[in-house]
């Protein structure tokens, strides 16, 4: 058997073992889970060095016209992503040992993590869209299980449901996209070579006008099956539908609402799944199928717009949040928006680069936040913290590194990747660039606000006065991530993450001026200036304040999107459901069915009334009936 299968089998075996028996024995469960994560990471290292080759795929579904393999693609893209996933995953596993040490159900927690590892490596390795979808749903499932880990809490259960349903809505589109993909391409494989061939096909049209394609899409909706498989509209439709998957998984507007709520889960879960890896799977998927996306200009434009809008939209909301994890969650949204925008602007390598650095520092931030929360006995409101910087120094310093990296201060990792994205955006369109810059400013602003309020100033509660530093099993992962957050963006000549992905993208893409443009040379001084301005402004406002000097309800209430969904869409749906159910039980079943039944029975009651018991009535019926019968048959026809 090929060694590479261990990437999938090890966590699968661990999760099955935990499901069957080990959930009752937490320590064994932890052993199995962490062990499997280590195996994964080691195998991933072996894969990355090229020591382990891609295994022979086997047929999962095979009927004439549709073949779905279970196989692996081991190209630079997946290798890089694999290292991030398994590496960060392993660190989070280790961190969790300490973080979850006092939870009686931690066996179940680690089981969920193992399911996640299994699914996530599956997504990374998938060589076709159906397999990708399989694991795509698998990460959704593990996310659901882990968000709802404390299921006794109503809010946790609700958040888990919300996450799953939002993803499902998006997967609706994704599935449509996959099937359209198959319809157009005749395959579901995403092997770069096959995609490259499709991409190179002369028959593949390319478009530049959005409006023109919208008209065509209308044609499609009104005349199903009336267009040929290779028509242009369909390609755009496919791109948009595939992008839907990303909208759900990577929590783009308008389906972003589940991600902040997902913070109901344990913090390591937030770090691993809802910041570093799973939510980035959407971006990874876009990069994986990038040659196909690039076929539709309109689709790309839509992707870029969505990403851009989500980036600034989430950043704005983050400015007014008070829950440490929620701030980070909105920040994640915003950064994901960046990445998606990068893809849309024609820079998948930029997106992947940012994905990687973001995985480092956002995992770091979440784990450090977890450490803070742990230290303060489950306190998450930053206004109830304060003055922590010298009491839990290790946590503070690692957190600070993460914050600086995220803000994009040179020469931390975030600076390079963000700068690269802005470059790509500038090449694509200046508007995107400027929105990106403003977002960078906002990022710096709210992160500084977070640090200033949570770590500086006087302690605002008793808990904040006596925090305790976390054990080494938690702090060591922090330190490792902090180091990565610092050096992650560095590149020396051809060695570095940026050039790694850049080389990948040059391999995959053709340089035809539409799908890939060489980035323009622009100075990074402007965004950096904005970043510093943001940090300073925020520090000025927030150091040593007891309450928020800004008070913008519309931001604090997240633009009322949740309220709109809960009070309008959900209520509307329930009203529809009740109306239909009323119709079903009263009209269809009641009036029509029972009506027919009662009518028959009533008619029966009526008919038996003729049976009066009187002989004369009988004789009368006999005679009259006979007479009528004779009349009808003889004379009336």
């Amino acid at each position, binding site marked *: 058997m090929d060694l590479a299968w261990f990437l999938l089998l090890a966590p699968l075996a661990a999760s099955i073992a935990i499901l069957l028996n080990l959930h009752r024995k937490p320590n064994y469960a932890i052993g199995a889970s962490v062990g499997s994560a280590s195996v994964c990471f080691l195998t991933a290292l072996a894969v990355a060095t090229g020591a382990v080759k891609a295994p022979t795929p086997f047929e999962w579904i095979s009927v004439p016209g549709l073949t779905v393999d279970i196989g692996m693609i081991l190209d630079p893209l997946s290798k890089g992503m694999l290292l991030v996933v398994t590496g960060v995953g392993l660190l989070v596993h280790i961190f969790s040992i300490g973080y979850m040490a006092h939870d009686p159900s931690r066996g179940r927690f680690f089981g969920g993590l193992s399911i996640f590892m299994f699914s996530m490596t599956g997504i990374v390795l998938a060589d076709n869209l159906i397999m990708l979808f399989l694991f795509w749903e698998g990460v959704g499932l593990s996310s659901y299980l882990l968000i709802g880990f404390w299921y006794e809490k109503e809010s946790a259960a609700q958040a888990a449901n919300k996450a799953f349903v939002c993803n499902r809505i998006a997967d609706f589109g994704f599935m449509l996209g996959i099937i359209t993909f198959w319809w157009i391409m005749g395959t579901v494989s995403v092997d770069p070579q096959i995609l490259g061939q499709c991409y190179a096909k002369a028959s593949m049209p390319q478009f530049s006008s959005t409006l023109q394609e919208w008209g065509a899409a209308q044609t499609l909706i009104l005349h199903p099956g009336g267009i040929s498989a290779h028509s242009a509209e369909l390609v755009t439709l496919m791109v948009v539908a595939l992008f839907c998957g990303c909208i759900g998984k990577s929590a783009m507007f308008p389906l972003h609402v589940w991600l902040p709520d997902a913070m109901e889960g344990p913090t390591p879960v937030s770090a691993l799944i809802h910041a570093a890896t799973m939510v980035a799977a959407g971006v990874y998927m876009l990069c994986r199928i990038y040659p196909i996306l690039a076929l539709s200009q309109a689709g790309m434009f839509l992707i870029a717009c969505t990403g851009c809008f989500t980036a600034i939209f989430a950043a704005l909301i983050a400015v007014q949040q008070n829950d440490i994890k929620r701030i980070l969650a909105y920040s994640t949204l915003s950064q994901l928006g960046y990445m998606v925008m990068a893809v849309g602007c024609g820079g998948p390598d930029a997106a992947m680069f940012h994905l990687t650095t973001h995985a480092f520092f956002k995992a770091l931030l979440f784990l450090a936040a977890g450490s803070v929360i742990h230290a303060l006995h489950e306190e998450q409101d930053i206004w109830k913290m304060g003055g922590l910087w010298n009491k839990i120094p290790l946590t503070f310093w690692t957190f600070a590194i993460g914050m600086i990296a995220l803000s994009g201060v040179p020469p931390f990792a975030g600076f390079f990747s963000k700068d690269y994205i802005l470059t790509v955006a500038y090449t694509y369109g200046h508007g995107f660039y400027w929105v990106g810059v403003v977002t960078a400013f906002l990022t710096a602003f709210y992160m500084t606000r977070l640090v200033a309020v949570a770590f500086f100033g006087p302690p605002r509660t008793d808990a904040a006065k006596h925090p305790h530093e976390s054990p080494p099993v938690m702090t060591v992962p922090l330190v490792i991530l902090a180091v990565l957050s610092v050096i992650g963006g560095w590149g020396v000549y051809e060695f570095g993450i940026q050039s790694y992905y850049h080389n990948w993208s040059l391999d995959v893409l053709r340089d035809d001026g539409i799908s890939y443009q060489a980035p323009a040379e622009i100075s990074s001084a402007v965004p950096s200036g904005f970043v510093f301005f943001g940090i300073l402004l925020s520090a000025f406002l927030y150091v040593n304040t007891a309450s928020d000097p800004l008070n913008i309800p519309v931001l604090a209430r997240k633009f009322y999107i949740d309220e709109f969904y809960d009070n309008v869409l959900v209520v509307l749906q329930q009203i529809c459901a009740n109306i239909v159910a009323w119709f079903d039980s009263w009209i269809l079943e009641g009036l029509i069915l029972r009506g027919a039944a009662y009518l028959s029975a009533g008619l029966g009651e009526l008919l*038996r009334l003729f049976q009066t*018991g*009187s*002989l004369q009535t009988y004789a009368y019926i006999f005679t009259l009936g006979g007479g009528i019968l004779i009349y009808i048959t003889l004379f009336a026809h």
Partner: protein
Amino acid sequence: MDITLNHYLAVAAVLFVIGLMGVIVRRNLIIIYMSLEMMLQAANLTLVAFSRFNHHIDGQIFVFFVITVAAAEVAVGLALIVALYRLRQTTQVQDLTTLKF
């Protein structure tokens, strides 16, 4: 005036209808039973008339069968009515409405 077949048939029909009316409107079982006999006799009259005018003897033979059978029927019927009278002290049909609906 010639008395044709139609005259006989008409008389028979009238007899039949009178008998039928008797069955329907009279309330005493004995009377009803007599009306029934009248209906049978109407049929007999029809048979005889047809037999006579068509020169077929079969009809008249049939009449004998009908009369015989009617006699048997009357024997059984009257026995029933008597039994009923002994039990209920009535021969009125409106008292016979235990079985209904």
